[in-house]
């Protein structure tokens, strides 16, 4: 496991796929650990499960009522419609 390669794949209109990550550090320093071999990181800030993507970018209705204020979405993904 020590020589594991970490890679990041950009999904147009969607999350970042990250392979080989052990933990994700949020903007406020919060560490979220994972034991999944591949994870999807939210880029649009609409996820209810940050830092993970929960496919909220697909839900048209949620777009107008984004309640998020943590300033997590500086890197906005293109709107997927």
């Amino acid at each position, binding site marked *: 496991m020590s020589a594991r390669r970490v890679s990041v794949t950009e999904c147009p209109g969607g999350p970042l796929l990250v392979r080989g990550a052990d933990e994700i550090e949020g903007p406020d320093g919060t560490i979220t650990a994972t034991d999944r071999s591949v994870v999807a990181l939210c880029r649009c800030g609409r996820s209810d499960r940050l830092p993970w993507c929960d*496919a909220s970018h697909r839900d048209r209705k949620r777009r107008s009522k984004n309640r998020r204020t943590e300033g997590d979405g500086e890197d906005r993904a293109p709107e997927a419609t």
Partner: protein
Amino acid sequence: MRLPEPCGPLSEGVVRALVAQPDGPHAVSETRAMGDVSDPLTDRDLQLALWTLYELHYRGFDGVPPEAEWDPLLIVSRAALERTFEHAVRQLVADSPPADELGHLGDRPSDRVTAALTRMTVGSGPSEVAKFLHRRATREEFCGYLGQRAVHHLRESDPYSFVLPRIGDAAKVALAELQYDEYGGGRPDRLHQELFARALRSLDMSTDLTSYVDEAEGATLASVNLLSLFALNRRLRGAAMGHLAAFEATSSLPCERILRGAQRLELPPEVGDYYEEHVVADAVHEQLAIRSICGALVDAEPDLADDVLFGATACLAVDGLAGEVLLDGWRSRRTPSRGRDVRAAG
């Protein structure tokens, strides 16, 4: 596992063939012509007969010799049922509203396919079934839903594994990566089938698959059989992967709603755990399935592009049909004065 209860001439013929002769050959008596089947997608007898024959390729039945899996006479019967089923699926897909005009999407066939898969699954939001479970379902209706879905979830992901040896290179690697996650990521207690079984046990519900098959609507069996049709026929490997992409890409949002429904009804945490797992896992899987699997598959085999899109459309259409049957059932039971009229799935 025991054999299901037959519900008509086709399923009766199959079950009788399986139990009649311990050593085969297993001839299925032709007691009902395929031409008499008016709607194969909701015909419970046809779908149960097909499901029973497909199950021989998975875990099989108590008292049925394993050799039955490749009994030529049973394969002949299966092929006849499959032809009728596949024809109906292709008609349903042809009648489905076409995806938006896609215009110029890129130079490679894989660009066209990944864009089309994204387009056909985006913005669909949670299904009506998921909304009903979220806001309105009683505990009994919720458990009824779990019972219908058990036919799929207790075998979750298994059909797609048949496709692994049938595709190569990057698409194979990506499918293995997705399946590894479905199969618990190396941890038996996180096997998705087991998560669902644990949810059933937490509600004091059986984990015996046959008991759910005995109660399943024809359309529910059709949605499960569709996967086996695609996964067990190598010629339909592209459709199988398109089905996977559509399934995963339309899973996270409904699972979120169903999770909230389980919380509203204060169901045991094991029920929520299953759906919570799928909100996050399937957000990953949709990207893997659309891009890493279907995109790579079509790059390697451009001729499969149409099959991939056919499989995705078929998934949405057939699963949509199964959902409508469930919703109709809930509605008619809530307004008994109108009766349970037109359900063809009985």
